[in-house]
């Protein structure tokens, strides 16, 4: 089955998380992604993985994001490396990068230069605060976006400091937004022949996910802050509670779920009690909601609580570890994890695609994350028509080594 993006060629200068995630998604959908890997960066990632887990045979934990891609290591400090990049861009549809704003210009391959090479090119950039604006020169990481957006102030427990989410949540949002923008720009190009530049900011990507808290702060002067495991929007009827043997997440914020809860707790009056029977009443009587749920959950195991709530149609789940999650029948049935054979590390199970269940063009993991420069020959032959002799000559001149 051909992927939906089988005719799209992406020249991918992305590093770290957001852009590799973006181009990994495009590759799942069939795009031809040529990763321009800087060897030093690849080595740093590999060294980091080996050090962190004290095991030299490991591959980097985030390498799954490079599934389905081919890799060339271009030395962009070499004039012939720059020339080669331009040749690839001439044959490409999309260029992806996440350098600090201005870096591509300094390397001589900024948007204006690449647009002159290929007016149809779509240039997708992710940066900390965007290519414009007062903070465009700030360097950016997820942790800074979690800080500056206020996201940290709404995560965690009231008795603790603002709390960071346990992974780089912002990068994934930004990568997804860039993928979305790239596909929209491709659609525009199909009609007009016109390429364009895309400017996605980590800060804004996370700011978008604040669920109306910004509107409440800005228009109503209501400044929400962290409430532990209770939903800031829905309150304690949507929260995690301690059981005899762990933590149980329960969501009964909707009327029909609350009615189910009253059946599960064998307290039918709960569904009729005016202090509890409506969404607004449950928000007003948070203490009663909290104590009702907390005492019921505390009196049983997570497994029993989960079973009784689910039997009554109430969303509930034990709070799983990653080890438990990967064994869950649903996760296995959906095939989120894929097995690939990595050139160095051999058979590996890696995180796969969120697009595995598109009826006509399902996303697929068809090849393992590449080694740096693994595909220099096939790519230059296929895309640019180079011969072995030409490639060896460039190799000898140091075009493929930083």
């Amino acid at each position, binding site marked *: 089955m051909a992927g939906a*993006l089988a005719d799209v060629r992406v020249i991918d200068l992305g590093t770290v998380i957001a852009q590799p995630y973006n181009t990994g998604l495009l590759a799942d959908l069939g795009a031809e992604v040529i990763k321009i890997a800087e060897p030093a960066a690849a080595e740093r990632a590999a*060294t980091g993985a080996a050090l962190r887990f004290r095991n030299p045979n490991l591959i980097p*934990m985030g*390498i799954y994001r490079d599934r389905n891609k081919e890799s060339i290591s271009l030395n962009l400090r070499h004039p012939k490396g720059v020339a080669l990049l331009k040749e690839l861009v001439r044959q490409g549809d999309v260029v992806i990068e996440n350098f600090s704003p201005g870096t591509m210009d300094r390397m001589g391959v900024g948007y204006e230069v690449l647009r002159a090479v290929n007016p149809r090119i779509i240039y997708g950039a992710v940066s900390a605060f965007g290519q414009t*604006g007062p903070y465009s020169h*700030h*360097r950016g990481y997820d942790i800074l976006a979690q*800080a*500056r957006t*206020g996201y*940290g*102030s709404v995560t965690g427990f009231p008795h*603790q400091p*603002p*709390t*960071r989410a346990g*992974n780089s949540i912002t990068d994934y*949002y930004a990568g*997804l*937004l860039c993928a*979305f*923008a790239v596909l*929209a*720009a491709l*659609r*525009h190009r199909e009609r*007009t022949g*016109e390429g*364009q530049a895309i400017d996605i*900011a980590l800060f*804004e990507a996370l*700011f978008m996910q604040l669920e109306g*808290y910004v*509107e409440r*702060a*800005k*228009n109503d002067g209501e400044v929400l*802050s962290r409430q532990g495991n209770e939903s800031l*929007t829905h309150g304690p009827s*949507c929260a*995690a509670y*301690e059981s005899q043997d762990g*933590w149980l*997440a329960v*969501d009964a914020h909707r009327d*029909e779920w609350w009615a189910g809860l009253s059946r599960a707790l064998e307290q039918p009056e709960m569904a009729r009690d005016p202090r509890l029977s409506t*969404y607004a009443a449950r928000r007003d009587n948070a203490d009663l909601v909290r104590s009702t749920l907390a005492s019921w959950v505390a009196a049983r195991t997570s497994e029993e609580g989960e079973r009784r709530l689910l039997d009554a149609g109430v969303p509930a*789940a*034990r709070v799983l*570890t*990653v*080890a438990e*999650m*990967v064994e869950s029948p*649903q996760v296995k049935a959906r095939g989120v994890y894929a097995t690939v054979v990595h050139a160095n590390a051999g058979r590996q199970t890696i*995180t796969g695609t969120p*697009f595995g269940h598109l*009826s*006509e*063009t399902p996303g697929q993991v068809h090849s393992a994350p590449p080694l740096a420069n693994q595909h220099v020959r096939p790519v230059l032959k296929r895309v640019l028509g180079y011969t072995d002799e030409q490639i060896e000559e460039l190799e000898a001149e140091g075009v493929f080594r930083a």
Partner: protein
Amino acid sequence: MADALAGLRVLELRQGIAAAYCGMLLSDLGADVVIAIDRVMAEDPDPPLAAQLYLDRNKRSVLLDPAAENGQQLLLALAGWADVAVEELLPDTRARWHVDPDLWRRARPDLIYASITPFGRTGPDADRPASDLIVQALSGFMNITGFPEDPPTRSGTSLSEYYTGVATGVAVLAALRHRDRTGRGQLLDMALLDTLLTAMEGVPDTFFRTRELRPRTGNSNPLFPGYGFYEAKDGHVATAIQGVNIWPRFCIAIDRPELAERPEFTSQADQDRWGAAVSAALIPWCLEHTRAEIVERLVAFGVPAAPVNTLADVIHEPPLADRGMLVEVDDPRRGRITITGSPLHLSETPGRVRRAAPAPGQDSREVTAELRPGTAARAAAQSPA
């Protein structure tokens, strides 16, 4: 300015953030997005009311009665009108509305039907009731967030809904490309859990290799020294002192250039000593300075840093105004208000906020009139309550 998705017709059926966010992104780029609701859903707590203020901008709203014959006709007319249906309904609503993707797709083989559910339409948990909180619990995400002495911790927003909203947008645009080539629509079976799992940073991948689990490490991680939230005199700051090239700048910024010469900082090879030394220099220095002092100083020396803001702080951040991320609109219910703008900065087809979120059913008459005349005549939409 042109709109990349001008002429694209989207029917949004939603009781969740993911479908609403997907619709918002499509509408920002010019798609014509129509939300269909009934009187029950007009009072629905999902998506949250405050979030609707920005998630529903640019959209139109049609109120119909799914139990009445003309309501069903109107729904089918909308399904016939749309290029794309984005559906995130609870199972009982789907039944009440008689929404059936298989039926709709048989009638319209070129329809792109995006289904958003917690676990997907296949697998043993396909019908299990759930929401973002449940997905956060089952994904393992809560078990890598928070402090070791605290419980596993949820993220402060419905993060799986947002991830899946954008991922669904990506799937929709890819499916449109496929349709342009082949004339065929498709069913996009998107799951909150699937999408969140692809954003778990390789923690599961590492577990497969080592059988080791990343513990909760609070606001910093010993494996990434200098990367985290740190206490300042008047609150908290975030820094990302990542790698050996940032370290010397940090030493100069805190007026301790001699630290840069110490052997453990010239190479990252000795991770433990490096981490301990970074913490020993960073933590006391932050405690002696205010957030503003720390950020100003570090940023001036090229060391990534930011204040840990409250929501009262963030709305005053200069880049938001500068880049159109806070937009004033005339809301039909609230009057002049400010909402979150569009993150889609495209040079030729920028994302735009054209109008405020509609009141429920605000556009019933207008949309009905635009539907195919024969159908529209039979299916008179209800006026808003």
